[in-house]
C-alpha cells in the first residue's frame, strides 16, 4: 500500500480541495451523497 501512502501526503497537504461547507442542521447524508456525485 506504500504507493497510497506517498501520494496521500501530497493529496492531504494540497490546500485546493473543494471545501465541503457543512451548514449546521444540514442533512449530512445528503452532503455525502453529493460529494460522491460531484464528478471531479
Amino acid at each position, binding site marked *: 500500500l506504500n504507493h497510497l501512502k506517498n501520494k*496521500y501526503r501530497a493529496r492531504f497537504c494540497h490546500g485546493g480541495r473543494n471545501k465541503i461547507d457543512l451548514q449546521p442542521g444540514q442533512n449530512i447524508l445528503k452532503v455525502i451523497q453529493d460529494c*460522491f456525485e460531484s464528478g471531479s
Partner: protein
Amino acid sequence: QIRKCTEKFLVFMKEHFDKLFAKMEEVVLQLV
C-alpha cells in the same frame, strides 16, 4: 476469451474504485 473479458471488466472496476476511493478519502478527511 473469458480472460480478455475479465481483464476488460477489472480495468473498468479498478478505475471506478480508485475514483470513488479518492472521493471517500476526501470526504473522510473533511468530515471526520
